[in-house]
């Protein structure tokens, strides 16, 4: 008995030490980005790593913000040439605005459509249900590269190429959300639905008043999942967006690598600018995130 207690203790000490070391490794990239963004060019290109900036400078951020300008936002009235543009700001700010808009729009549309569709697939019996569901399962893991060329041509034909919608719409079409919500909606007790029907509630009311509150945690989980995934969806941005005004922050950073010389300080400043907002979002919503997604997973 004593030896097991001993070995448990040893295991505990060893594993905690290992995890602390791993945690350092995991935190390192962000640490390096943030400190790097304040280093001088010499220090950042030095051959022996400078663990801490010997001198804190803002030049990288100054360069980032003086590089190019773009209007803060521009809204085009559909089917016309009328455009409202915001005041001129550094392009990096516009990229942030674009990225936030893209992620929020993708998140909102995905959650709205997936909530309804997942509910229908879980709780409604109708012809073609199995077919649709099978297609969803099969397409769920499909990488977007597979449909790269057709998607490009389609967006071009729809005149959506080089707009944020070209990135947003395929994210919304991706059926993982429907699958996720369906798993949650399976857990809605049939009696509750039956009770609502007997009370004479319309289909919409049954959905919005009975089903929706039950699948809320699932929607929360899907929201965060979609937000982070579209924030990081570098591939679609790379393919679909070409101009400074439509660029996103990931794309902006990737484009800073020019042939003449890669300005790592500038890239670090851009990366920090890209990472900090989303980390704040994560910290704020952390609790909700964990809670939501676990309940669904447990019910599976």
């Amino acid at each position, binding site marked *: 008995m004593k030896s097991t207690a001993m070995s448990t203790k040893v295991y505990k000490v060893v594993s905690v030490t290992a995890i602390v070391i791993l945690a350092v490794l995991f935190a390192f990239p962000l640490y390096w980005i943030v400190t790097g963004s304040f280093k001088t*060019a*010499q220090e950042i*290109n*030095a*051959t022996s790593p400078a663990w801490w900036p010997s001198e804190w400078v803002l030049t990288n951020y100054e360069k980032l913000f*003086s*590089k*190019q*300008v773009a209007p803060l936002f521009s809204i085009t009235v559909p089917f016309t*040439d009328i455009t409202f543009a915001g005041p001129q700001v550094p392009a990096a700010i516009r990229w942030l605005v674009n990225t936030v808009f893209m992620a929020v729009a993708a998140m909102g549309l995905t959650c709205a459509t997936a909530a309804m569709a997942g509910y229908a697939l879980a709780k409604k019996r109708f012809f073609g249900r199995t077919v649709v569901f099978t297609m969803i399962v099969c397409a769920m893991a499909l990488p977007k590269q597979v449909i790269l*060329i057709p998607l*490009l*041509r389609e*967006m*071009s*034909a729809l*005149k959506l*190429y*080089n707009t944020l919608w070209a990135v947003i719409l395929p994210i919304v079409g991706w059926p993982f959300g429907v699958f996720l919500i369906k798993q949650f909606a399976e857990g809605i007790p049939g009696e509750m639905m039956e009770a609502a029907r007997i009370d004479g509630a319309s289909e919409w009311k049954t959905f919005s008043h009975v089903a929706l509150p039950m699948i809320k945690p699932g929607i929360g989980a899907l929201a965060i999942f979609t937000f982070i995934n579209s924030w990081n969806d570098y591939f679609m941005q*790379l*393919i*679909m967006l*070409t*101009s*400074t005004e439509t660029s996103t922050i990931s794309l902006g950073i*990737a*484009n*800073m*690598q*020019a*042939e*003449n*010389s*890669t300005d790592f300080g500038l890239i670090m400043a851009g990366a920090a600018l890209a990472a900090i907002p989303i980390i704040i979002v994560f910290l704020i919503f952390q609790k909700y995130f964990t809670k939501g997604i676990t309940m669904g997973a447990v019910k599976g």
Partner: protein
Amino acid sequence: MRLRKGLAVALTGAMAVSAFAGSVAAEEATEITLWTYPIGSWGDAATVEGLLASFNEAHPDITVKVEYLDYTNGDDKINTAIEGGQAPDLVMEGPERLVANWGAKGLMVDLADLWTDEAKEAIYDSVEAACQNNEGVFYEYPLCMTAHTMAINRDVFEAADALQYLDEETRTWTTENFIKAVEAVYASGQENVAAVYCGGQGGDQGTRALVNNLYGGTFTNAEHTEYTADSEENIKALELLAGMEGINFDASLQGADEINLFCNGTLAMAFCWNIAQEKNNVENIAFDVLPMAFPTETGEPQLCGGIWGFGIFDNGDEAKIEAAKTFIDFMANDEKQVVESVKASSYWPVKDLGNIYEGDEMMTEYSTFVQYMGDYYQVVGGWAEARTAWWNMLQQIGSGAEVSEAVATFTETANAAASAK
């Protein structure tokens, strides 16, 4: 393909409608897009804004929207934009892209009306030859040119007593002396003398020029119809490089990475070099840079030239094509403007403009190399595919493949692309 045709008809219809709607506005301003690669300061927004300001003074009816590309993603970006139906109106790059790639694919506008007799008279013959395809159709109107060189870290060479192997006056050296110099620098404790970067993307001219010069090989035949990289001279050169201590075939590096490593002193030589690199990195360099010609057996280097200018994508809009031509004409032919346009690139003009860099020491230093400029061969068809295959070949050699086999595979792939229709 029927579906696409149907789509095209529908689109043309839509475009006709929108053209009708837009015809009132068209009289006011034509908006064109210009995408530039980082050609000196043509990749820098502040400089280009200045150039555009003078253009708009002369032509207030044309607005130019500029996008700045890089050599890592730039090609892919234009390629996706073409497929997405939104290719830029104007693009600034060299013949290997404008003529040999997009021009050969029938996407560019014939610039015959810019190439007037007067222009042909003024522009150097070698440049004129490079800006057209084999049928004599011009897809590029050139602005500036330079010779790509290599560079050495003079401080390191001096410490290793290796300066004796090169001619600081003419900036040339023989292959034999190059080998000796690398040996001396390596022996002095510089573990990494140079890197044959083969990670891909930009900077291929440096590796090509190095290989071709060492033993006098060529990359293509004289008619620019076929790739000849599998010649004995090239194989010998690649075998030499692969076997030299201190020279790494490094697949983790791209041209830009090599420049960074040279500038921070990790490497003692850079193969991806020209005047713009030194100007751009001046703040990061803590040693004396000595630009050099590539080593040759005879001491007569054939440097790879860079020619940059404008091409126009055929987007089917006559007004935009006209506006784009006006832009080119202004930037490259207006007597006052052309000097500024060329200076922005930090390269040399493609016609005689007098000495526009009077009193600029660095420019004078680099102008030594113009005399060594070799054949501009980057106009063979299938250039983009060939470049991709070239990187693969270097990677194979780097990981120990037989040089002759790797080179044979390259030539086969490249020539297949060259003859493809």
